[in-house]
């Protein structure tokens, strides 16, 4: 294991960086899109609610790999050439945004409906009440589950290995076939993933206990 770190440390670190980069980009965009659909799901207009519902159910029930491969195979064939990293990240954004939408929606619904009614009675419009009263309270409930979604995102970003995204998993495969020491390579890759996910996971558990 140590010899793997010595010989291929640079490649592994590059992969770690790409994994982290992809996860952070995906988190930011998934958070924006996800919150958007979560709000659409609680607006009074039924049309928007149906659209949000369909989006969420579709992307929640199709494997991440199918979405990612679609962007990797179909889009370059018909529309525009995109890199493996980009197609992987787009797939990850769409997939995670559906889960984040569910998380944020349950956060919004856990805010007492009286808050919205009170705000409306005070003369705020629906959007004002949402923006200034409901969402700030909802986000407090939502932080621990969002942290867990981020952990899932880091784990799911390993799908970039399928589309030559040069992430940690991809580098691991390259090193494994180069060094012929598959077992110790994958153990090294596992340790690096744990460095990203395990502290976050324990911190989220602590946060959940503190908020509960």
């Amino acid at each position, binding site marked *: 294991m140590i010899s793997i770190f010595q010989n291929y440390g640079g490649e592994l670190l590059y992969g770690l960086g790409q994994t982290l980069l992809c996860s952070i980009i995906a988190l930011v965009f998934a958070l924006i899109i996800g919150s958007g659909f979560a709000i659409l799901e609680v607006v009074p207009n039924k049309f928007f609610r149906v659209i949000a519902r369909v989006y969420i*159910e*579709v992307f*929640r*029930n*199709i*494997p*991440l*790999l*199918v979405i990612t*491969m*679609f962007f990797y*195979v*179909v889009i370059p*064939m018909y529309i525009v050439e995109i890199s493996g990293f980009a197609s992987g990240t787009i797939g990850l954004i769409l997939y995670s945004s559906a*889960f984040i939408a*569910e998380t944020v929606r349950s956060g919004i619904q856990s805010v007492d409906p009286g808050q919205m009614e009170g705000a409306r009675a005070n003369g705020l419009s629906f959007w004002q009440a949402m923006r200034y009263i409901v969402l700030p309270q909802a986000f407090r409930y939502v932080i621990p*589950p969002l942290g*867990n979604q981020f*952990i*899932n995102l880091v*784990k*799911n*970003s*390993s*799908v970039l*290995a*399928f589309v030559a995204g040069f992430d940690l*998993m991809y580098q*691991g*495969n390259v090193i*494994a076939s180069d060094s012929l*020491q*598959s*077992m110790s*390579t*994958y*153990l090294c*890759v*596992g340790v690096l*993933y*744990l460095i990203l*996910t*395990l502290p976050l*996971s*324990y911190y*989220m*558990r602590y946060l*959940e206990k503190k908020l509960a």
Partner: protein
Amino acid sequence: MLTVLGAYSWINIRFLLEGAWVTILVSVCSIILSYIFGVILGIIRYVEIKYLSAIVGFVIDIIRNLPLILIIFFTYFGLPNIGFKPDPIWASVIAMAVFESAMVAEIVRAGIVSIPVGQMEGARSTGMSYWQALRYIILPQAIKNMIPAIVSQFISLVKDTSLATIIVLPDLMNHAQIIYGQNTNYTIPMFLALAVMYFIVCYSLSLLSQYLDHRLGTAKKSGEVEEVVQGAER
């Protein structure tokens, strides 16, 4: 247009269905294995046997925080280094079972924790031993609370079987790739077929989970269970 419709010829559909059969086979095998091991590990983690529970808890945490693809690779390419060489189907069943039993174990632990302490105290004070109380009083209630969370976990298991194409498991995803690899005109129809087939399986399971939630009247409690479970995908 005709070339596109050719993608859905009987031969292709049958080939896809063969893949779907492997997907279902692998999913069902790993569901059964992960349920059995998950419940055992979850109980071990809850009852706090000296040293054993701490070790089991730590191992569960490690496995839950690793990507499934890594575990699949490790099983298929890593284990042959120490002389164990599974074929793709067994490798994916083993990898899925290991990963999902860690997930199920966490759900089981959360389910047991969600039962009020008074239940255990009451059972003990009526003369039951610790294990009797666990077996007859706590577990039946806990399992009822965690059924929806477990069904959700199994939905992500079905989706995750697609990851095993990377070790050439002849599943739905892999067969679709073979078809569009032979004729690039079939790419979009194949992705459509993939999306529809996975969606039908997963969405019906998700409806089942909602129905069970409603039927068992556990909506609120299973919400509590899911809150305790970290890393659950829904």
